[in-house]
């Protein structure tokens, strides 16, 4: 069968398409069909010739097969040093083979390549820092995912995720109206505690345009309210766009580059419409990578930057604390042993290695913070990156992958893990569920709100209480 009805080479462009695919429980039929779809070898080779240029080709060619990248990969370590998990091996046995065979590979090969690409690499880019030749396997896996996606060999959830972006401009089926309603409704819930709290929608020329991860609107709506509260107390002139509010890109995990472009352009359009001084994104690593680090390139922006200056939530928070826009009540600082999860996506991939530590210096009682080892740009992926968290088909592999982070956390003795990244947060929640090591985990927003020193004029008046 050249293509299946569910598993095929066509991207999903309609809401019905998504519904149909979702109706296939856990993708049972989808994966069954995948066993029989045909590889379009001509298309594969043609695509490679057009898009695989010096960088990746040279990497594949000069790899010295020295194995120095082995220990750098958390999945290699988590899998008891299985040689099949050495980064160089993983990429050469997949992408390397496809190129060597000039695209002439079969269905079985592609299904294995899919397994490797989505369950043996989270594109955390750590190994690239340990290779003497500067070979960045994570980047090559991103590229390989694109080739696999084009041929229909992509995990069910990723196919749906990319489809969501194409249809809703968000990783979940949330329309612009739903989003604005949810935000407003959440803010109303907190109005009494924070008089004057509102959510300004589509205000032109604000200082801050705030963008989120659609999971917040769908599953953690308090997060929206918390953002509003913090902007309110900090006295920021902020707004949310009713369209172009979704900062993440599951399409990036799926390798659907066209959808990546559509998604990020919706955010940049909002910038064009509202002309904010800058964009602040939520506490999410992959969202930041998608809209700020890689996004400009998908959108064809030659300067490699978004149309308005764009910062991660931790950058805004550090600045607000530094400048005294937000004040911490010293008696409420964290007094349990705690540690910090460095998100690869904004630390290793965007240099924000000290920003979160600055925040820690304001909110944690001295002596209670213990860094993981290794940390900052050398930190290990939590095990949930690259879409790994969401793929049921590879749940077992993902759970094994959590072990390295578990051991890192255990070694610190921390009881609380500060995780200003959605994927990391999810992975740490799952690792507690899986291994029960007795830790708590949190985003920064709720922690900070609990310890704020709120100026009197922003407090509820006596008679209101």
């Amino acid at each position, binding site marked *: 069968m050249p293509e299946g009805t569910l598993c095929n080479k066509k991207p999903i462009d309609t809401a019905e398409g998504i519904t149909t695919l979702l109706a296939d429980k856990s993708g049972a039929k989808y994966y069954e069909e995948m066993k029989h779809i045909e590889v379009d070898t001509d298309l594969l080779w043609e695509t490679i010739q057009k898009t695989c240029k010096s960088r990746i*080709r*040279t990497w594949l060619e000069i790899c010295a097969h020295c194995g120095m990248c082995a220990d750098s990969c958390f999945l290699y370590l988590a899998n008891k040093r299985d040689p099949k998990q050495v980064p160089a091996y993983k990429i050469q046995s997949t992408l390397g083979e496809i190129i060597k065979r000039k695209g002439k590979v079969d269905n079985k090969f592609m299904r294995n390549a899919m397994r490797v690409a989505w369950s043996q690499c989270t594109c955390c880019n750590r190994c690239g820092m*340990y290779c003497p030749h500067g070979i960045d396997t994570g980047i090559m896996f991103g590229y390989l995912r694109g080739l696999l996606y084009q041929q229909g060999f992509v995990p069910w959830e990723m196919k749906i995720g990319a489809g969501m972006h194409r249809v809703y401009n968000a990783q979940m089926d949330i329309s612009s109206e739903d989003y604005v309603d949810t935000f407003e409704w959440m803010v109303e819930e907190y109005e009494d505690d924070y008089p004057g709290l509102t959510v300004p929608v589509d205000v032109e020329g604000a200082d801050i345009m705030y963008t989120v991860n659609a999971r917040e609107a769908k599953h953690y709506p308090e997060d929206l309210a918390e953002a509003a509260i913090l902007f309110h107390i900090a006295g920021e002139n902020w707004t949310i766009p009713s369209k172009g509010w979704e900062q993440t890109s599951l399409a990036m995990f799926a390798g659907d580059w066209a959808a990546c472009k559509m998604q990020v352009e919706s955010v940049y359009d909002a910038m064009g419409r509202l002309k904010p001084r800058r964009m602040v994104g939520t506490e999410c690593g992959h969202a930041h990578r998608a809209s700020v680090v890689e996004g400009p390139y998908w959108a064809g922006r030659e300067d490699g930057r978004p149309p308005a200056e764009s910062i991660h939530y931790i950058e805004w928070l550090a600045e607000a604390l530094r400048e005294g826009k937000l004040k911490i009540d010293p008696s409420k600082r964290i007094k349990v042993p705690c540690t910090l999860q460095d998100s690869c996506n904004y630390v290793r991939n965007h*240099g*924000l290695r000290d920003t979160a530590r600055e925040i820690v210096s304001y909110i944690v009682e001295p002596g209670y913070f213990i860094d993981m080892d290794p940390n900052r*740009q*050398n930190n290990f992926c939590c095990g949930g990156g690259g879409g790994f968290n969401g793929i049921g088909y590879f749940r077992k592999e993902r759970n094994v992958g959590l072990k390295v982070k578990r051991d890192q956390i255990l070694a610190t003795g921390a009881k609380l893990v500060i995780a200003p990244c959605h994927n990391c947060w999810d992975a740490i929640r799952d690792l507690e569920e899986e291994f029960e090591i007795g830790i708590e985990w949190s985003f920064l927003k709720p922690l900070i709100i609990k310890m704020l020193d709120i100026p009197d004029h922003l407090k509820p008046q006596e008679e209101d209480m």
Partner: protein
Amino acid sequence: MHGLLTGPLFYISLGVCIIGMIVRFYKYFTGLNWQLDRVAYKKYPMMGLKGALRSIYKWLIPYGTYGWRQQPVMAAAFFGFHIGAVAIPLFLAGHSVFLKEKIGFSLPYMGSGAADLISWIAIVCLAFMALRRLVLPEVRILTDKSDWGVLLLSFLPFATGLLARYQVGDYGFWLNMHILAGELVLLAIPFTKLSHVFLFFASRAQLGMDFGIKRGGLKGTPMAW
């Protein structure tokens, strides 16, 4: 035989090596694509240059990076061999004389004691790297025939050179073998993994630009990768 090796064959292999590598360098840098690679190479020339130089420099210093520090023994073997592989061909007294005669100039040369020591260190390190390929599962799985070929090609000039140096058997024969081995290496450089001799700088420069421009450089975070 000797005349052929030191005459036309020498010029041919040197020429092939130099021209081959110029071509490869050219192709590498013209093949970089800001949009496909997702690095704004041209927009921030100074940050790019800084990142590139930093990346090359850090990796050329023994233990200059986390990567090297993570693998101290391998790093020692690596530098042990590569120092020899660069220093001996360029700074050996005999080579100096030869180069002066053939191409009109040569570099300062070192004493024979130092040269012997460096050569032996290189050989021992090479042996260690070969052993590593056999013993460590994570390296064994990567190793293929061409890796052994490259190791052999790197070993031959040292082995034959030392045999000639200590005049084991027929000096003239070993000298010819040595020259042949050296020329084989020169010929192989542009076409095999030995191309890393030059492309190391290209690929490091690229990743350095990536970090300098996109991954933190513009944020003022110089990462020592």
